[in-house]
């Protein structure tokens, strides 16, 4: 059970959260303009990164807010969590965080 740092509430056990899949996949602004291929990519294609992965969590049994996280999928260590609308931390900012 992971320990997740909700940017609104602080560290809480994973049981309070729901995983929301890969982060930063925007729904196309004008779906009608998308080709079938583009729409399928929006729906289904995922980076599935082995390494540093941006993902969404929702603190469902807490503040209810969605937020984003950077997690290393080879160790499950979180490098950062940040609010919706914020940019992920840069490599420089992440330096010094133990992966």
């Amino acid at each position, binding site marked *: *059970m*992971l320990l997740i740092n909700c940017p609104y509430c602080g560290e809480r056990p*994973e*049981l309070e959260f*729901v*995983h929301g*899949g*890969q982060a930063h996949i925007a729904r196309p602004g004008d779906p009608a303009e998308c080709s*079938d*291929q583009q729409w*399928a*990519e929006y*729906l*289904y*294609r*995922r*980076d*599935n990164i*082995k390494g540093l*992965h941006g*993902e969404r969590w929702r603190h469902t049994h807490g503040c209810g807010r969605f937020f984003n996280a950077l*997690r290393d*999928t*080879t*160790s*499950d260590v979180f490098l950062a969590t940040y609010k919706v609308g914020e940019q992920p931390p840069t490599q420089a900012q992440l330096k010094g965080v133990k992966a």
Partner: protein
Amino acid sequence: MQRFSGLSLIRRGLTGQRGWQPQWRQAEPKAAYDAIIVGGGGHGLGAAFYLAKEHGLTRVAVVEKGWIGGGNTGRNTTIIRSNYLFDESAALYDHSVQLWESLSQVLNYNVMFSQRGVLMLAHTVHDVQVCQRHVHANRANGVDNEWLTPEEARAVCPLLQTDDIRYPVLGAAFQRRGGTARHDAVAWGFARAADALGVDIIENCEVIGIRRDAHGAACGIETTRGFISAPRIGVSAAGHSSVIMKMAGVELPIESYPLQALVSEPVKPIFPCVVMSNTIHAYISQSDKGEMVIGAGTDAYTSYTQRGGLHISRHAIEAICELFPMFRRLRMLRNWGGIVDVTPDRSPIIAKTPVPGLYVNCGWGTGGFKATPGAAHLLAWTIAHDAPHPINAPFTIERFRDGNLIDEAAAAAVAH
């Protein structure tokens, strides 16, 4: 290939079991092959075997970054069944069950396929509808599956608690031809048989790139042991499929999740079949060694760590103890995790890819072991013919673009 039999065991027993040869050679990579399979699990080894045996390709290599059978092949709960809902799925999995039925003899390796029957429990009115739909659909497809009342289910599995539990058992679907097999033996048996047909099995060789020629076709793989060329490359890398396919620029609709399983300490035979419950999320059987083999669910998040959360295995044990309250006094002996590659419709991909000469077999999610010989057979066919076999023709990558999903998960539907 040295023949395995009771007689050979006795004969060699008189001389201290000396004289057994390695079951497969420790092959060094050659410069070029006719075909390369990436991934030395049961699926990949099997594909190499069928390429050599049925399609006459003997210059075949299997490259494995670790040791063969060390991924999901050796980390699953070994359940085999084919009672899937959709016609496409039923055909695929039943193809596999049919191959299982003679696999020990074909490979001359006892894979211990044990058709002890798979019981799938229904706990709600909705479950009953779903189970019965499966039973009817399976019968139409020529797949055995029958509906049992709670009493009949208890006759199959006397320890099963059907009443006085939170979700009483209202009945069960029972596939008698389903069962279990010995997972390691499948990898080793395919390896040995493929090796005997000239296939090179190259362990400790990690793929770090896929080379494409001027026309964009795949022409070989870069590995930690050098470049190996081949005009046809089949990728069968389970949880690492995304990682490998990206090397060729192919993006997959796949995510890799941790999946856990666990066993109890061994006890004398007490559990005659396989029992599965989708509603309370548990499945269980007893291995020939006596351990109760229990499957848990996937974790919620993607991960390549081969381990999951404690709460996931706790939940699986809760469910087992609910159905089998006498097992509360048993003890967990071992718990482990694999990485399962999950597609949006929970059905696999066995297909050509946008890159000529590159083929993929992936997306088996939590259920790949049962498909081992079938998937291997179909991947080999697809590579050999550069075209899918009719059975795997629907299992393309493009189905996600076109909307032709084979959605076994959705069809199990949700409670209303």
